[in-house]
């Protein structure tokens, strides 16, 4: 299927980016969002009063203000009459908030938009609502003792049996990302973990140790977008968003994914890989491919999943991720650095902020402003993430 409007430029400019450092601060999520928003506005050199559209990524963990995050951030920044949107799409919430802002700009509804996502997370396992609720797959799987790390471990074990992945490979991903994150002032964990430390952490779900699995974090991220015309009038060079993919899966999806007990049945329909389709749609829209990439930010909810993403975003063929990792290509200084920010390994997941944080990293890299973790000559980057209930997204940013 041809991407709708693929021949027309759908690009928008990123004028500013900003974040609140990730951590377990325990403060109100609005504080992180406003901090990030003010940082992005300052980075853009644009006063809040000039923003015509504010797009918030919702959080489900912070009550009503979280459900209407766009308005919550607008009120905290000071009501000024901007049009407002809030998006919720699990891990892809930030990308959908971004897509709403882009649509508003491209349709001529505004010149300047602010996109904000922030979260405050509880401690421990994420668990479902109480009661006897067998109609909710999320309740059923927890009743059976199937937690989020279960799914991450199933993907990891399959790689070991099918492609010869080793525990050392998974550990090498964590060690690599920790080394990247050590140079990132916004990362929650700045420690350079050794393989010995990772392997010595407690087993959670075989083969995953605690330090292979990402934490849940507090944090906030924001971007200021504008039309290319508006950016041109201001002068200077800016990073551009070349594609935003927020596709749904296609039936029959072959993904074993949270929170489902069973996959779709492919008895009467062809089987499709959802995760591969997320990046494919972004490449199609941007008119670019994996060979054009300078770097990638992918969703390492657990370290082995970074290897799956090498394949889903097309950095190598299926079964080739271990060789790519071992070659050193995905380290900063390698051919195609992955998670130069430190990834979820160094950040922990702050759901509505995470997809935006990935885009912030690409923008800093493309500007050559990433400091010690700078990827040389970065021109094009892709983000990829995927979460509950058929949500996922990929964003391509280029110079």
């Amino acid at each position, binding site marked *: 299927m041809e991407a709708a409007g693929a021949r027309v430029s759908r690009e928008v400019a990123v004028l500013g980016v900003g974040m609140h450092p990730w951590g377990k601060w325990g403060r109100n999520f609005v504080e992180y969002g406003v901090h990030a928003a003010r940082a992005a506005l300052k980075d853009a050199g644009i006063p809040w009063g000039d923003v015509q559209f504010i797009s918030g990524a919702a959080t489900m963990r912070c009550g009503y203000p979280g459900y209407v995050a766009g308005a919550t951030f607008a009120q905290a920044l000071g009501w000024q009459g901007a049009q407002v949107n809030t998006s919720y799409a699990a891990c892809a919430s930030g990308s959908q908030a971004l897509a709403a802002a882009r649509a508003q700009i491209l349709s001529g509804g505004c010149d300047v938009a602010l996109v904000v996502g922030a979260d405050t997370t509880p401690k421990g396992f994420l668990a479902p609502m109480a009661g006897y609720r*067998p109609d909710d797959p999320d309740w059923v799987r927890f009743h059976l*003792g199937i937690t989020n790390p*279960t799914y991450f471990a199933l993907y990891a074990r399959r790689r070991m*049996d*099918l492609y010869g992945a080793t525990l050392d490979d998974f550990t090498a991903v964590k060690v690599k990302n920790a080394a990247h994150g050590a140079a990132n002032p916004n990362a929650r964990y700045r420690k350079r973990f050794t393989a010995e430390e990772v392997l010595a952490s407690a087993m959670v779900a*075989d083969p995953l140790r605690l330090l292979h699995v990402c934490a849940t974090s507090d944090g906030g991220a924001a971007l200021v977008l504008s039309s290319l015309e508006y950016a041109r009038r201001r002068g200077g060079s800016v990073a551009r968003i070349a594609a935003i993919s927020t596709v749904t899966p296609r039936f029959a999806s072959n993904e*074993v994914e949270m929170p489902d007990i069973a996959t779709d049945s492919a*008895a009467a329909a062809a089987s499709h890989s959802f995760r591969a389709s997320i990046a494919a749609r972004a490449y199609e829209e941007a008119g670019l491919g994996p060979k054009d990439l300078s770097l990638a930010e992918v969703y390492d909810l657990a370290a082995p999943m970074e290897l799956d993403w090498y394949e889903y975003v097309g950095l190598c063929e299926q079964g080739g991720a271990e060789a790519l990792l071992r070659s050193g290509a995905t380290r900063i200084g390698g051919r195609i650095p992955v998670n130069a920010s430190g990834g979820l390994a160094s950040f922990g997941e702050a759901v509505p902020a995470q997809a935006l944080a990935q885009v912030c990293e690409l923008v800093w890299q493309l500007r050559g402003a990433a400091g010690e973790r700078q990827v040389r000559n970065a021109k094009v980057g892709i983000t990829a993430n995927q979460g509950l209930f058929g949500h996922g997204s990929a964003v391509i940013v280029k110079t």
Partner: protein
Amino acid sequence: MNSRTRVAAIEGWYTLDDPPHLLGSRCGGCGTYFFPRLSTFCRNPACEGTAFEDVELSRTGRIWSYTNACYQPPPPYVAADPFVPFAIAAVELAAERMIVLGQVIAGVDVAQLKVGMPVELVLETLYSEGATDKVVWKWKPQVPA
């Protein structure tokens, strides 16, 4: 004499027969299987089916992948005291072309499992309440590793 009562931990998802089966649905229009059961609208975008028959799913399959739970999961999991780790498998059913997750029977750990290994469906106690055993489907290796 066994005075214990055996009931399903999750009602309507599987039979308590010997041998047991998972209970699914099959679309009368396109033949797609669903687990858990579906009785409303077929999810195949090429099918507008609204009529489903209840079917017993294949009770054997091959392991797609596997792991275990080393930490006690949070409620609604009902843990024994002390918590006993258990293995989990995702199993591919050939006829239905779907993958179904479940616990692996007690006493089998990941070292005895492998992708592609044939397994069969059995019932085992998930937890007990007094004299009542709440049973659930579990996967059992067909050939000892």
